[in-house]
């Protein structure tokens, strides 16, 4: 069964450093998403991506965040200058129609 994959599973970084989280969506899906879940809190929508551009973004997705689909398979989330409060689980998801499939997540810890 096809699945969304994410790398790395865990990332530890220093405050102020740039991180890139990688995702491989399901191959025939057209919509791609990033979400964040701070420990013990709800899943928060960050951004959706369709046809090589951002279609929606939340207030959380400020100028320090960017997304890219550099080739036909990968979908990345870049955080330019990480803050302590960026520590969270980051989930990638993809969908073709209404059914959205989530990856296993990347646990990011900013020290």
């Amino acid at each position, binding site marked *: 069964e096809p699945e*969304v994959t994410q790398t790395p599973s865990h990332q530890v970084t220093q405050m102020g450093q740039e991180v890139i989280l990688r995702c491989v969506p399901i191959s025939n899906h057209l*919509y791609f*998403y990033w*979400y964040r879940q701070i420990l013990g*809190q*709800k*899943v*928060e*929508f960050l951004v*959706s991506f*369709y046809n090589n551009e951002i*279609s*929606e973004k*939340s207030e959380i997705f400020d100028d320090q965040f960017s997304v890219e689909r550099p080739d036909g398979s990968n979908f990345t989330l870049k955080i330019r200058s990480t803050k302590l409060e960026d520590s969270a689980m980051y*989930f990638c*998801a993809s969908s073709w129609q*209404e*059914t*959205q*499939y*989530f*990856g*296993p*997540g990347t646990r990011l810890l900013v020290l």
Partner: protein
Amino acid sequence: QKEVEQDPGPLSVPEGAIVSLNCTYSNSAFQYFMWYRQYSRKGPELLMYTYSSGNKEDGRFTAQVDKSSKYISLFIRDSQPSDSATYLCAFRDTGNQFYFGTGTSLTVIP
């Protein structure tokens, strides 16, 4: 008022019980209504999806939407220990932005 309200629980039931999980919402732009299941340290998994008021059944799961009251429910019949997880309600607005509840933690005791 929060856009989505969900009782975090925890909810503990004996095996075979009927479980009722609920969410309320305030945003009239919400058009699509979803329930996800999330096991510990895993990504959410879509269980049910609907866009209309009424009931939708899938096996032991029934999703209920009442748009007039802005209230959605998920019913689990004949609950099993493998149903033990966190259940998230989620909504999609007209602009393709998604909103999640905080999740209800469910434990089904054998």
